[in-house]
């Protein structure tokens, strides 16, 4: 037994020495895009690939040793412990403005926390137990209240959240778990553990720019952790941080000129020694601009800088010398940047009834199919029979086909509604549905009950552009890249629902009131029973005082 072990170790070491340098690789990239409303989109992407690794089979025993060089150990342990094949965690603050900013570089931009994972079945511990453990482990790792993503928020919308990597070909099936917590806020305490997962922390490489003072001042910011298994390559961890800065706000003369130093208050002074590649890509605007220093590579869309190539601190700057002050575009005149635009609202002033409206505009000249997902906590319950679709005021119920609907179970399970919408070309589809607001138990209200409840964003994925490829239509500017890659998710903004909130001092009032009543009744009965009654004889017949008068002897 011992000999076998030694032989195994020996064989393994031989192979390890050969593949030593390339077993784990780390790449980092910063993408900066000037946006058309004068803002600056930034996306930090840190990719670590564990070559040749496979996700742990759920039924397999935990190995006793785990050795990582670049791969984040804290995250690796969590993945291994709960046998997670694919994991996506995003923590975002603010609403992503699709109209002005286009598609984000990282698709997960739903407000608040979103966690979804694909896990293999067949372990002695069920998927739901592992999902709970995963939630708690990540909550501890990222100091976020992910522990409250419990079964009241967990669904399995496998149509919308397809695995981004590949699922290993095991005998048992994989299952999806998805939960959102729109009221979660992102702050420094989430960024610090995020930075600790990076091999170079925030001390060298492009992570040097992750300065919390500036990042959390941004108009929109969010971090994401994405783990996937790539068949033939290994397990890949992508740590992403996205932010939208407003250089116009920072500058004193309303110009949109920016530099790394003005936006992040830092420059890249040291290269991360273990990064295989370390790039800064700057998206090039259509109008006249100046960029400094000279990029290493430039094409018509991006200027690329290789960090560490120059040997000195890298401080990219972009200027619009011909522009005295930035002119904001009028919203109506702007060409849409996404294939479809979505708006979702909750109407109605009553505390028990409301109407949810979804307005989807197809910006393409072709008919588009889109999947529509609602994962609504049981706080809001749909009357599915009232679902109506209108195009130009004409009822078009044929455009909606329900794929799956699981009704909510009060106090335990959320609603899951997945539908396929057919969007007519260059037109707007309006969906309305009556909803009822539930009446919560006294203890179910959050500490700031008057604020209302955040409802998770709906997710729309336009997916079938069939005719577009055959016809040669002129397309909106940003639609091109959309077609190159996989279908992209579009998140609607979150909604706030105002549920009937009780007067929280009421139970105490009731207690005091009933206690007073009981005390009164008790007191008078007790008094009657123990009081001493005497007959007082009155001599004067003229007196009108009653002959019997009570007197206590105390």
């Amino acid at each position, binding site marked *: 037994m011992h000999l076998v072990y*030694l032989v195994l*170790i020996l064989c*393994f*070491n031989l192979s*390890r*020495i050969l593949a*030593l*340098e390339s077993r784990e690789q780390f790449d980092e990239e910063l993408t900066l895009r000037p946006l058309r409303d004068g803002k600056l989109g930034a996306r930090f992407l840190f990719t670590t690939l564990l070559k040749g690794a496979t996700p742990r089979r759920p039924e397999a025993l*935990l190995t*006793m*040793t*785990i*050795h*990582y*060089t*670049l791969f984040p*150990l*804290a995250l*690796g*342990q*969590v993945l291994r*412990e709960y046998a997670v094949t694919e994991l996506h965690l995003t923590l975002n603050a603010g609403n992503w403005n699709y109209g002005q900013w286009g598609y984000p570089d990282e698709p997960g931009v739903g407000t608040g926390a979103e966690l979804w994972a694909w896990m293999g079945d067949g372990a002695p511990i069920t998927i739901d137990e592992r999902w709970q453990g995963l939630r708690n*482990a990540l909550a*501890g*790792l990222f100091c976020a209240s992910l522990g409250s993503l419990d079964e009241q928020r967990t669904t399995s919308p496998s149509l919308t959240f397809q695995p981004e990597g590949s699922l290993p070909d095991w005998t048992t099936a994989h299952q999806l778990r998805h939960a959102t917590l729109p009221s979660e806020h992102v702050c420094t305490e989430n960024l610090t553990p995020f930075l*600790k997962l990076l*091999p*170079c*922390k925030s*001390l*060298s490489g492009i992570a040097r720019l992750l300065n919390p003072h500036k990042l959390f001042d941004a108009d929109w910011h969010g971090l994401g952790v994405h783990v996937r298994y790539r068949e033939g390559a290994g397990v890949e961890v992508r740590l992403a941080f996205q932010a939208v800065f407003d250089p116009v706000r920072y500058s004193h003369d309303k110009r949109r000129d920016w530099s790394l130093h003005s936006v992040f208050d830092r420059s890249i002074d*040291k*290269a*991360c*020694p*273990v990064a295989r590649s370390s790039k800064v890509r700057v998206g090039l605007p259509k109008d006249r601009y100046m960029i400094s220093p000279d990029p290493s590579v430039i094409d018509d869309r991006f200027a690329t800088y290789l960090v560490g190539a120059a040997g000195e601190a890298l401080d990219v700057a972009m200027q619009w010398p011909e522009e005295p002050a930035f002119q904001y575009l009028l919203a109506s005149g702007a060409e849409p940047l996404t294939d479809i635009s979505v708006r979702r609202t909750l109407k109605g002033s009553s505390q028990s009834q409301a109407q949810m409206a979804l307005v989807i505009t197809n910006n393409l000249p072709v008919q588009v199919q889109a999947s529509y997902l609602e994962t609504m906590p049981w706080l809001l319950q749909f009357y599915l029979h009232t679902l109506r679709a209108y195009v130009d005021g004409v009822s078009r119920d044929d455009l909606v086909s329900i794929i799956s609907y699981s009704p909510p179970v009060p106090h335990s399970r959320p609603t899951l509604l997945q539908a396929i919408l057919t969007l007519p070309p260059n037109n707007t589809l309006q969906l309305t549905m009556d909803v009822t607001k539930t009446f919560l138990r006294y203890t179910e209200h959050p500490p700031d009950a008057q604020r209302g409840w955040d409802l998770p964003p709906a997710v729309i994925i336009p997916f079938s552009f069939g005719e577009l490829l055959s016809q040669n239509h002129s397309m909106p500017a940003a639609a091109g890249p959309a077609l190159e890659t996989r279908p992209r998710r579009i998140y609607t903004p979150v909604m706030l629902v105002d549920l009937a909130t009780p007067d929280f001092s009421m139970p*105490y009032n009731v*207690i*005091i009131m009933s*206690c*007073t009543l*009981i*005390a009164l009744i*008790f*007191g008078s009965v*007790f*008094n009657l*029973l*123990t009081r*001493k*009654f*005497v*007959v*007082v*004889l009155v001599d004067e017949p003229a007196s009108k005082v009653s002959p019997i008068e009570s007197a*206590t*002897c*105390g």
Partner: protein
Amino acid sequence: MDEPPLLSRLSFESVLTRRYVVASYWLVVLFALPLWWSTTSIDRLSLPASRVHAQQRRNVIFPVHIHVNSTAISDVAPFIQEVQQRLKADTYTLQSSGIDARVSDRRLDSSAYDVVLSRGSRDPTVQDRRLFFDIYPEEDGLSWMTSVMRLTDTVTQLLAPYSTYSASTVRELRVMKYSPRYRLAFTLLNEDAASGNAAMSWNIKESISSETYFSILDRLSVLHNFTVESQVQFHAPLAFDPRTLRVNGTEEHGLTQEDLTVFINSAEWTLSSSVSNDPVIHFVLFVPSSSHSPLHILDYDGLRSRSNAFMLPQWGGIVLLDKSSSSHLTASDLDPAFTIFRYQLSTLLGLPDFRFACSRTKRASSQIGSSMRYCADAHWKTWRGVQKRWRASWAHAAASSSVAVALRHSSRALSLSSRAFFNPGMLALLYFPAEHKYAVYTPLFASIAAPLVAAVVREVLAWRRSRKQRRAEKIADARPVEPERRKVD
């Protein structure tokens, strides 16, 4: 107040009835008290605490057989007898460690320790469970007696190393608390990999599985389960600046003894993952940045110490790497560091330096004790399931004669009790504020208690007055003349 005239008395008015009414109210209150008590008190399930404490007071005695292999000496019986007598007489060291040593020249069981006697003057050496001991070649009484005493001393030291050292308490403080599972977290820590002097990777798999290191884990597998994790960190800034020294014209850097206490920068270094609650033993191989290289440890006099490693009690060990020759550390580069790590591990686990001693049995007894204390000392509510299982394992542990079986059961009892302790439901029970209860009770109880108490006070006063009056009447009856006379006046 005057007693009302007889005529004014009402038919239903009677002192006795009133007193019955008051008494019956109080009776109801008194009978309700136990019900109130039982419904509001916290339910605590009992554990066999007294049995545990009794068990703890019992001294665990481990019989140890020492087989004296005496081919070199002709007449060994008196020698053995003398050693045995001296070991028996040494009540302090051996018996306080719970060791009952038996010396004989016949092999009693396979687990006996061997003492190989020969004549000569070499120092005693230990190999596994064998002690090679030289007795003086001279045959006179003095050297014979000295040999006996020396052997007794050596054996005592080997069997009970802690109790013979004056610094035993210091040593015990270093030892990690017992746990059935430990995580060994190895970290190759570069102070600043971007500055040049750095080790980018290490061949830790080979170093851990090497004979020297792996064997100790294998040997301890009866007591503990080890999981091993390792990582490389490329940026680990120190929280302080090491002292700069000039030695022979070159600049060197030193860590003072005070620096060592704050060396670990827990705010910035993540040295282990937090996936489980098992205690972690940290091993850190620290590579100083080029601006802090070479880095040495200074002794209390500010002079460079020969050692480049130190240990933090109950936490782990740190080795400073002098200079990394290449960016990849091979197993042979790591050899010196891992020899130190191995030593540090055995110290942190409380293993004696010699394998001769019965460390296993010692650990067993301490573990059983700690498991029992853990459960019995805390008066918390245990889960019913845990209570049942804990009782079962404890019973096994207490009853089983085999050390290994007792060990297994007591370790199970320990993990069950810790699970009970960390049950989130415990919190609400332990921290239920009494103020809440009173806030709800007082509006009702205070307002009801007032007339009840007042009625009692009133009745007592009335009863005392009537008694006084009766006494006064009695006196009046005894001397009936006087009032008559007064009346006449």
